[in-house]
Structures are given as C-alpha cells and as structure tokens.
C-alpha cells in the first residue's frame, strides 16, 4: 500500500510538471511571434522595472512635506520632465512612484482573487451536487453585479486604505476566476486519468491540484493578465473618486482628479499620469489578448 502510494505521488508530480512546462514552452515559442504579446510584454517589463527601481532612481521626492511656492505649477522643463503640480511636487517622480502603487494593488488583488476563485471554482466543479449549487449561485451573483460598483461599495463601507482597496477589488473579481475553474474542473473530472488516480487511492485535493490545475494554466494566465489591467482601472477609478489610495501617496487616479481644475493652465498635471495609466493598462490587455490568440483561439468568446 505504501509503495503504491509513493509511486502514485511520483506519477502525479511528473504529470503536473509536464503540463506546466508544456504550457510555458508553448507560450514562449508562439508568443514570441505574436506582435501583441511582444509589445504588451515589453510595456509590462518597463513598468515593473520602473516600479521596482523607483527608490533608487535619481528623482525628486514625490511626497515632500513642505510646499515650495516657487515650484508650483511649473511647465515641463529639463529639471522637471513632467512639470510640477499645484503643491510644487515633481509630476514625473509622482508618476513613477504611482507605478508602484498601481502595480502592487493590482497584482495583489488579482493574486488574491485568483486563489479564492480557483479554490472555490475547482471545488464546485469537481464535487458537484449541493456544493456546486451553492458555490455556483454565489458566483453568479457576484458575476452579474458590476465589478466596479461592488468595489466602490466595499471601499466606501470599509473606509479608504490600501488594504481595503485590494480587498474591494478582490471581492469583485474572484467570480471570474471561479467560473473559469469550475468549467475546467467539470470537463477534466470526466476524464480517464482522474478516475484512474482515484482508483489508485489519491486524495481528492491532490487530484484537483495536480491534474486539473495544470491543464487550466493557459486560460488562467490570460485572465490574470487581463485581470491586472481591470484591477488597475478599478484602483485608479476608486482613487479618482477619493476612496482609493489616499494622499499624499501618489496614485495616478488621484493625480488626475487633482488635475481637473488646472486643465487649462497646467494640463501636464493630468496628461502625463493619464498617458502612463493608459499605456500600462494597454500593456496588460495586449499581453492577455495576444496570449489568448496564441494559446487557444477558441477562447475568444470568453470575456473576463
């Protein structure tokens, strides 16, 4: 019995590694040739690099404690590439630091949604019956409700803070992942190797994670990428309305809000954060769309 179990474990581990490696190889091989993937990936790499390197880059302090009156509302120049805002702060520096905020919030939220969604979706699809009924009902409820509104409601209720924003986005986004995983689990469950594993005595949770999951890697990656794009949009919208990242922490959404009264005299306050925001979101969208084309053109109908 012990010997058989050990063998089974090794078989399952080998199967999982095969599936994951296969998908990654496919992505790199075919993705290289897809222009959307290449452009998207480049943008993301640049943004992530900027976010990570921000503390070490030779830039002005994005959140100075005092206002230097002479510096207020300066137009772009060699010393202030993106100009300064109404409090004299260097816009370029704030935009770069804003990258950290957006990316951190977005990726954390997506990872959180993914974990919750995957576990619930797999459970629902794999076990079926009453469990599935309850979980599916919940998924449907969250799925039809507009994500932004839900996030707004939670952010408003919980009070504005970085953690709450992440939580709010996660709450509104997990349903998409759950739906995806449930669908995958339903199809894989019927397959022979799952029955074989069960016959060999593997635990249900083990089967779920080592068989079902690797086969779903492709759509998960696509949705995760588009999910980050959506999360950045939600976070910046929440910050724009004042319930997201709070000042003085630089956030693109908030910077745009502050820029509206100055659109005529200091358009750079809103324009630069807006452009960078757009490019970042575009980058993740391109990567997601491109990967979707590469990995499975049949997925085109599914919209996260």
């Amino acid at each position, binding site marked *: 019995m012990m010997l058989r179990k050990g063998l089974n474990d090794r078989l399952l581990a080998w199967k999982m590694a095969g599936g994951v490696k296969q998908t990654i190889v496919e992505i790199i091989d075919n993705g290289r040739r897809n222009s959307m993937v290449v452009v998207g990936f480049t943008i993301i790499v640049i943004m992530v690099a900027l976010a990570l390197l921000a503390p070490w880059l030779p830039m002005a302090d994005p959140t100075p404690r005092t206002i230097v009156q002479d510096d207020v509302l300066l137009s772009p120049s060699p010393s202030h590439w993106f100009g300064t805002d109404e409090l004299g702060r260097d816009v370029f520096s704030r935009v770069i630091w804003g990258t950290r905020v957006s990316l951190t919030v977005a990726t954390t939220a997506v990872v959180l949604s993914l974990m919750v969604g995957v576990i619930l979706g797999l459970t629902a699809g794999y076990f079926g019956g009453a469990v599935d009924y309850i979980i599916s009902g919940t998924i449907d409820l969250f799925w*039809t*409700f*507009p994500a932004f*509104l839900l996030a707004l409601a939670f952010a408003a209720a919980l009070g504005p803070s970085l953690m709450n924003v992440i939580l709010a986005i996660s709450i509104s986004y997990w349903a998409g992942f759950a739906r995806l995983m449930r669908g995958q689990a339903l199809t894989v469950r019927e397959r022979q190797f799952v029955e074989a594993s069960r016959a060999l005595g593997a635990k249900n949770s083990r089967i779920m994670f080592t068989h079902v999951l690797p086969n779903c890697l492709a759509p998960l990656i696509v949705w995760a990428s588009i999910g980050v794009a959506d999360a950045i949009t939600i976070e910046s*919208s929440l910050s*724009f309305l004042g319930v997201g990242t709070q000042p003085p922490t630089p956030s693109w959404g908030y910077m745009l809000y502050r*820029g*509206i009264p100055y659109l005529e005299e200091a358009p750079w306050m*809103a324009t630069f954060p807006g452009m960078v925001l757009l490019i970042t979101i575009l980058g993740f969208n391109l990567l997601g769309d491109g990967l979707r084309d590469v990995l499975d053109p049949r997925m085109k109908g599914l919209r996260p």
Partner: protein
Amino acid sequence: MADLVSYIIRKMMLAVPVIILATFIVFLMLYLTPGDPVIAIAPPHASAADLDALRDKYGFNDPLPVQYGSFLWRLLHGDLGQSVSVGTLHVSVGDLLVQKLPRTLELMAIGLTISYTMGIPLGVYAALRQNSWGDRGVMVFTLVAYAMPSFWLGILLMMALSVYTHILPAEGTVGGFGSIILPALTLGLGNAALTTRMMRSSMLEVKRQDFITQLRSRGLPEREVIFKHALRNAILPVITVIGLDIGWFVGGAVVVETVFSWPGLGMLMTTSIQNHDFPVVQGCILVLAIFVILGNLVADMLYAYADPRVRLG
C-alpha cells in the same frame, strides 16, 4: 409566442430573490464600516443622548434578523433614512434619490444609444473587411478605447472639445442638450469599443457557418445573406451582453458624472462618500443595484425574443 411569455414570467420571478439579496447585502454594509454602526448614520456632532435615541429607533440592540426585517419594512415604505451631510441635513434619502435619478437615466440612455449606433455598424464593417486597413484601424480603436479608464477619456474629451476649443460646455450643471453630450459621449465611446469587438467576432463566426453558404446556394443576393440572415444571427451574442453592458454603464456613470459634475446619482454617491454620508451612499447603491438587476431582466427578455432557441430553457 406562448413560450416567450412563460419565459418572461419565469425570469421575472427569478429576479425577485436577487433583488432581496441585494437589499440584504446593502443592509450588511453598515456592519462593515469600522467602528460603531450608529455613528455612520448619525448627524455630525451628535451627542451621546442622540446616539442612544438613534439606537433605539433603528433597533441596533435587536438581533440581526429583526434588524433586517425592519430595514426591509422601512424600505417598502420608502424610508431610506436621512442624509447626514452638512448641506442636506435631515433631508430624506428617498427624496434625494428621486431627484437625481432621472439625470442619470438620461445620461445612460444617450450613452447606450451612442454605444450601439457606433459599435454595431463598426463591428459589422470590420468583419466584412477583415484584415483590411479599415479593420485594423477599428481594432486599434477598440484596443485603446477599451484600455482607457472612463475618467481619463472624459478628461481628454473635455480638453479636446471644451477647454481648448470651447465647442461644448464642460460643466453638467449648465443644463440643456449641450452639456449632456460630453459625459454621454464618454460613456458611449468606452462601451462602443466592447460592442464593436463583440459584433466583429460574432459576425466573423456566423459568416463561416454552413447555413450561410446554403442561403447563397438558394440564390439569395449577397446583401440579404449578410444583412438579413448573418446579422440577425450575429447580433445575438451582443444582445446577451446588454446586461453586462448596463452594469458597466452604471459603474461608469458614477465616474463620468463626477468628472463633469453631472447632477445625477453617481455624482451624489461620490459627494456622499466624501462627506461620509452613509445613509445616502447606501441608498445610491441600492438603487443602482436594482437598476442593474432590472436591466439584466430586460436584456434577458430581449434575447429570448430574438433567439427562439432560448425559450425552452
């Protein structure tokens, strides 16, 4: 036709529990707030005595189900509480909502119109001219418009059409047709991108189907094959997502109204959030949620009318 009617009735009955669930979630929101829930609904500078009075009135010391029950009861009588913002102290939330709702509905109606009158033809055009420069242009447009958050698009449009060129007024409070255009256009363009994409891929899919070739083999002119038959089939998935679109619009309306200071529910929600006016926020969310649910219902009915295969399930 009979199956259509029974389908509609079934869907309407299903909507009721969803609405009830929405009220429950909105009710629960109060308990998510940090701190004592009473404070959220109390006017600023309320004394301890006032707070106690409020506690009694709303039964905060009662068990949860009882509280929910009385919440529902008040709801059915139109009592959503009172505003605690400085400017609108003690004004009934219900009154505020009724006042602002029509503005949001106007905005959404025009936005939806713009979205579909742009998106559907554009999608069809792109599908018929696949891989041409026109198609690529459309695809680029959809990519960019989809990636752009509504508030940024609004600001850009504001700059282009108002601030620098003074074609249109920027502030919604001015009233009249001119001031609704910018916010409606912002909403409409954003969703047009989604509609276009959907329409294009659906049309491409339908064009490949066997029955299209069959229709040609019957001698039907190409124009009829495409616009009478293919389009009719291709538009079905677009109708399915009308419900999701409405959801998107509601969320977008909140943001866009804030950008343009358009006096609707969205603007009300934003200012209430900033003023910590919890009863109003709750009321706004409830109304918006019900609107989304009803919108989905209408979309479902529209779809059942358009696609006879659906009525059986």
